[in-house]
């Protein structure tokens, strides 16, 4: 795990460490098994094409998981992911790189909590945002230690 980030280390505009993912058809099958989502558009190319898709596509929930990893890594062991929201705007196919990114929008203290609100998203290999979202993370404070 990367070094813990503290509330004092970030400001509005700070970027979250990005996370690169290279999903394969193998991962889609693995995710289908682990999640129990066996909708065939995620592993059966013929079925996907018969449904008007270019080929098999990533589970939305897997993309949600990539963004969950981005922000739970950012929160670290001493932080806590309070809220996570994602919207699926574009389809993603296996075999090409996806990058999870984020930046801090604002930070504030709410009672005991040092709160950081982030804008997060997935970029496909063409740099298009297929999956925008938001996250609220509680970070530890050096002052409160």
């Amino acid at each position, binding site marked *: 795990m990367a070094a813990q980030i503290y509330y004092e280390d970030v400001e509005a505009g700070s970027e979250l460490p990005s996370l690169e993912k290279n999903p394969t058809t193998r*991962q889609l099958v693995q995710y289908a098994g682990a*999640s129990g989502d066996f909708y065939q558009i995620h592993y059966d190319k013929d079925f996907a094409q018969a449904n008007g898709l270019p080929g098999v596509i990533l589970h939305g929930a897997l993309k949600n998981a990539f963004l969950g990893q981005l922000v*739970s890594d950012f929160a670290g062991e001493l932080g806590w992911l309070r809220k*996570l*929201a994602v919207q*699926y705007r574009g389809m993603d196919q296996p075999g090409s790189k996806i990058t999870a990114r984020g930046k801090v929008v604002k930070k504030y203290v709410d009672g005991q909590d040092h709160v950081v609100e982030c804008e997060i998203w997935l970029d496909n290999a063409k740099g298009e945002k297929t999956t925008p979202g938001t996250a609220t993370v509680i970070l530890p404070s050096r002052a409160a230690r």
Partner: protein
Amino acid sequence: MANKIVTDEVKKLIGSQSQPRTFEIERGAIRRFAEAIGDPNPLFNEEQAARHTRFGGMIAPPTFMRSLGIEFLDVKVSANRVLDGGSEWEYLVPIRPGDRITVVSKVADIRESEGRLGPMAFIVAETRYSNQFDELCVIQRTTTIRY
């Protein structure tokens, strides 16, 4: 303009709620889920390393609840295609191996909008996950699009 697929009859389902179901959270299932999403975080994979954190042991990754096999209430509209529109999660208490998580899902909203492909129904399911101590752990709001 009158709704085409989200009729008054369909709208009556807003507020309806599922029977509670209880699931035992298995350590192996958490680890398999973390492996499937490719997340090596020790909190989700290694009990020994996780013991030395403030959590005192492994916890479930943020979207693990997807694997419990919750069936959202079926809202029948005259549309064949289904899309997952997205999810909002709120995390209150960590979910741990050995927890018994009780799940209740309700239809929070159903609305219609006209899309490029015709009328689309946006169905929002709100699902609450509570542990064996009656602590509310996670709230999930997932939007399903039928068109």
